[in-house]
């Protein structure tokens, strides 16, 4: 049947496009195992002629003062996890309060929060910089974590979930004498787990991958995150040393790729529910 042949053609087309999507990542890995001469010499050799781990041992183990890559990875992962935990905790509380409890002025607060989803980061990043500078908190974890926690995205996402949450469970617990906090911790949070994971994955990826804010909020090598650190290496001592740069970008990409592959379902759910970048 023509239909079947069409399907096969579509699969071939999809595979060719898939190759286009994978080539850059595979080339990154391939280059990371080449020495700088082989990399710079060009050519199309996907398998390095002189396979070497040197780029990895150099970037990971050398004492070169401007490549504290373990510190960068630690910073990124620490800031990502801390920020994510805060966001999930405070957004879940706020969204539940606004959706289900008798919070005063909630008819004003919720629209106020949601309207800020339209406000682009460009308008707040300079005053944020000044605020942290005035407090002497530039170049600290506080500066790298707190600005993300004001984002209303999580409140919006979780509000929709709590709105549709069945009332009967809460009421049964209330009759048993449980207070609001008990109900929230023991009943609401456990049943909200999937949507909380969605928010967690979004938040972690956003913080881990962010570029502009950590670039302006930090100014010493030890406080850089991995995304800003590699950008600075590319302009500094690794300039056109592509073997080392590709080892660095490969290392930087591994954790987030693992998170992505584990959390892909939640991520897709979050995008389709809210459509917010």
């Amino acid at each position, binding site marked *: 049947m023509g239909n079947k042949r069409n399907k096969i053609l*579509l699969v071939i087309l999809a595979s060719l496009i898939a190759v286009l999507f994978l080539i850059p990542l595979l080339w990154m890995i391939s280059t990371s195992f080449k020495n700088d001469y082989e990399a710079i010499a060009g050519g199309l050799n996907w398998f390095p002629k002189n396979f070497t781990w040197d780029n990895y041992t150099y970037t990971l183990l050398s004492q070169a003062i401007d490549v504290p890559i373990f510190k960068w990875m630690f910073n990124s992962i620490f800031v990502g996890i801390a920020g994510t935990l805060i966001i999930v905790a405070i957004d879940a509380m706020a969204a539940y309060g606004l959706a289900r409890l008798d919070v005063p002025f909630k008819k004003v607060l919720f629209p106020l929060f949601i309207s800020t989803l339209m406000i682009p980061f460009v308008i707040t990043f300079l005053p944020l910089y000044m605020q942290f500078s005035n407090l002497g908190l530039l170049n600290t974890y506080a500066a790298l974590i707190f600005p993300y926690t004001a984002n209303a995205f999580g409140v919006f996402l979780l509000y929709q979930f709590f709105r549709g949450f069945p009332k009967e469970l809460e009421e049964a617990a209330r009759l048993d004498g449980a207070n*609001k906090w008990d109900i929230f911790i023991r009943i609401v949070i456990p049943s909200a787990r999937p949507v909380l994971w969605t928010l967690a994955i979004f938040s972690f990826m956003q913080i881990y991958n962010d570029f502009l804010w950590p670039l302006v909020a930090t100014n010493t090598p030890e406080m850089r995150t991995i995304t800003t650190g590699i950008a600075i290496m590319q302009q500094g001592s690794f300039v056109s040393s592509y073997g080392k740069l590709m080892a660095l970008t490969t290392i930087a990409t591994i954790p987030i790729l693992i998170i992505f592959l584990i959390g892909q379902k939640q991520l897709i759910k979050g*995008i389709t529910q809210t459509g917010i970048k």
Partner: protein
Amino acid sequence: MSAEIENNKKKRNWKSNFTSFLFVLPYLVMFVSFLFIPLIYGVYISFRDYNLLATDHPFVGLSNYAKIFNPDSVLSSIFFEGLWKTLQFVIYSVPLLVVVGLGLALLLSNLPKKLRGIFRTVYFLPYAVSVSVISILFLWILDTNSGLLNNFLMNLGFDPVPWLTRQPFAWISLVAATIWWTIGFNMIIFINSLNEVPEEIYEAASIDGSSAWQKFIHITLPTIRPIMLFVIIISTIASFNVYGQPYLMTRGGPGDSTEVLLMGIVKQAFEQRELGSASAMAILMALIMISISVIQFKISNPKKERRGGNGK
């Protein structure tokens, strides 16, 4: 006695309101500290001659804004030339981000069910990677002498192309890297909206003898139109925010042809150390973007009514 009950009730209400408010309080603190105050503070800075090195930051009223709109000032050329470059990036990237995103979604939804998941993952994969990794990776692939692409082209007998150092190639490269990076996101939104097109309508159209193209034009497109407008808007906003790609891949070059507005604002703030005028530019840029969001809001509202009409 009834007054006492009334009183107790009020007390209880007050207590209940208070404990409920505690749920919102932590987020509210963050919201005020890191969003609300910065907004006000940003406006405050923009009304001042705020040099980072000076100890005194005199109030200058609207003079920073006036300079931006005075065609003879340096500030004006930074703002409007930057805005024009940002707009160019928007104009080049958004149509492709929408059309390619939709194309990939259509392709996926026509694949055998078993294969959809794997291809979706592959197309979506680059979205996980940070802008600095993407930029450095493309910097390497597009390198004029040693890059993968030019080596491939030379093998086919073509001359090497100065992908990052001459126009229009620099724009092409920035747009290509951006599409590779973010297209999966738009694709996911389109896949979801394609799933909402009722199967029966397609079947009815098949019985009527409609071709695949006719079905696409007369059934698919009208159904997903609200989502399409939505994707156009969010892609426009995302493209407006472009910074990392030109900052790392072209350094604003060749010349200053890709020095987008956000780059100009960051330079004004941290190289010229003129926070006041940089804040004024940032506020104007944000106002332009918010206007686009408001238009989105107006466009996406009728969508909800229509969905409601379908009894969903």
